[in-house]
């Protein structure tokens, strides 16, 4: 089985995210960059699936700038076989554009299964996986929390939704987005990281994919007008003291002032 994982580099979710002076991007200086957390489930699932099916091969791919090589190294250390980086052409970050570039490279490969993360921490679009599936003409299932290969070329999948889960059947090849709960991603061991670091990771340029600049611009369907920080909540009341008194006051406020109950 040929398995591919798409992963993206994003700021660590613990970091403080600030907007730049032009209000058109965030301040990247000093931010620790990591693999998008949901993509860890994707890598883990790919590695596990490959281990269970002899003769399988896994490839991890990212569209990003030079520094995003580090998430590919992490993926290799977690057990992925091959890695590819596609050089980010710059310009507006847009899911349509990202997906069309990724699917061009995927189209050159022979794959059975593509894993993506449920959503990227930075753009929160949950769109790239579905778009890639569309451009490749294969089915897509999102929010996968359980997954089982049934027969030669079909999968039985649990897709988590708001009120529970659907059990979904799908045939290969397909694209699957990974939700928390699918597995417990392993931590890459230091030795493996060092080994992965030495591995040559091929870089694909946009030119080598045969896109013209005009085409690339045409794939940018959205334009960011500006960023804002959501308004802070006004300061509240700190209630301290004897439990009975404190709760009496809270109870009164909830009933009379807030009127929520």
């Amino acid at each position, binding site marked *: 089985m040929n398995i591919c994982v798409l992963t993206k580099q994003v700021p660590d979710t613990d970091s403080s995210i600030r907007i730049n002076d032009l209000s058109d991007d965030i301040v990247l200086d000093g931010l620790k960059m990591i693999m998008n957390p949901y993509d860890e489930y994707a890598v883990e699932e790919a590695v596990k699936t490959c281990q269970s099916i002899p003769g399988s091969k896994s490839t991890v791919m990212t569209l990003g700038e030079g520094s995003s090589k580090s998430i590919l190294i992490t993926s290799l250390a977690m057990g992925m076989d091959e890695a590819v980086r596609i050089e980010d052409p710059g310009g507006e970050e847009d899911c349509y554009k990202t997906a069309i570039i990724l699917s061009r490279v995927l189209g050159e490969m022979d794959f059975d299964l593509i894993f993506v993360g449920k959503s990227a921490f930075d753009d929160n679009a949950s769109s*790239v996986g579905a778009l890639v599936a569309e451009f490749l003409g294969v089915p897509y299932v999102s929010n996968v929390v359980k997954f089982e290969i049934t027969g030669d070329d079909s999968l039985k999948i649990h897709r988590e939704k708001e009120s529970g889960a659907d059990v979904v059947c799908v045939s290969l090849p397909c694209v699957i987005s990974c939700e928390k709960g699918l597995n417990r991603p392993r931590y890459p061991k230091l030795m493996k990281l060092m080994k992965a670091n030495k591995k040559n990771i091929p870089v694909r340029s946009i030119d080598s994919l045969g896109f013209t600049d005009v085409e690339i611009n045409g794939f940018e369907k959205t334009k960011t007008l500006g960023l804002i*920080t959501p308004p802070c909540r006004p300061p509240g*009341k700190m209630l301290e003291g004897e439990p009975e008194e404190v709760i009496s006051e809270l109870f009164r406020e909830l009933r009379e002032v*807030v009127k929520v109950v």
Partner: protein
Amino acid sequence: MSQRLWTIVFTKDDKISRESLEVISAAKQMGKDIDLTIEAIFAGHKISVEDYRELLHQGIDRVYIIDHKDFRDFNLGAMKELISEMAEKYSPSIILMPANVYGKELAPSLSGMLKTGLLADCIEIRHRDGFLECTRPIYAGRILSKVKLDCDGVKIASIRPHVYPVPETVDEVTTEVEIVQYNGFSGAGAVIREIQETLGGMDISEANIIVSGGKGMKSAENFALLEDLARLLGGAVGASRSAVDEGWRPHHDQVGQTGKVVMPDLYIACGISGAVQHLVGMNRSKCIVAINKDPDAPIMKIADYAIVGDLFEMIPILTEKFRKCRTGG
């Protein structure tokens, strides 16, 4: 000239979902700025008038009914095929749908199929100078981004649930009903085999009151305290990721970046420190109460009422107060 706007209707437990009605609100709001013909698409199997009657009381112009066995459950392949076939025939300008799990599959798939742009998970959407413009949360809600859809052809957007209100219904029905034929899905797709429902409990994203517990609850059994309080208040029980990772609560109930985003009238956080990944899931709640031993815990800084103390002492007293008040004591 009037532009056609479509809203896609999803059902939940065989009823039109609240999110789908909220999308109609968003459409009507937009209709104040430009001349819109608002139409809803309702696809299902063995449809009777009762199933879509609610749509006729929203003051919209038309409802398209598509009755086919492929639409008994959500079927992404059939749905996108149907809508793109219809789009070719009717040329809508805008397609809106809820950004729930199904909408988040359908909206980008359609955008790829129709070679057009998408605004995903919008909390506000408007029409300006011939373009669609939205506000959408990025970085898990820590930043809001204003984005413009800069493309020709039909414009697609998904609307985050529970931000827009459910529209007020109108008594007089002026909505037309049009039946559309669909011949069945031919391609390869993902098909629902069985539907699994939640193992009891309310969907926290729909609850008006949430009592949530974290690591400070110390065990699964102790959540009974929160269940008691939630039941009295007609609310649901939520959890932090630590509580879910401990196996005390199901992932369905997790609030935050890797869980659900909730906006109840009242959120009571018990033994939750308020890590930023938790806060982004609940900081738009109307009123926040935090009960924590540590006055410096981050949750205490955003709470409307920050109660310093031991939750195992505080919660039973609060529950007792509500119980007395319910029973008129």
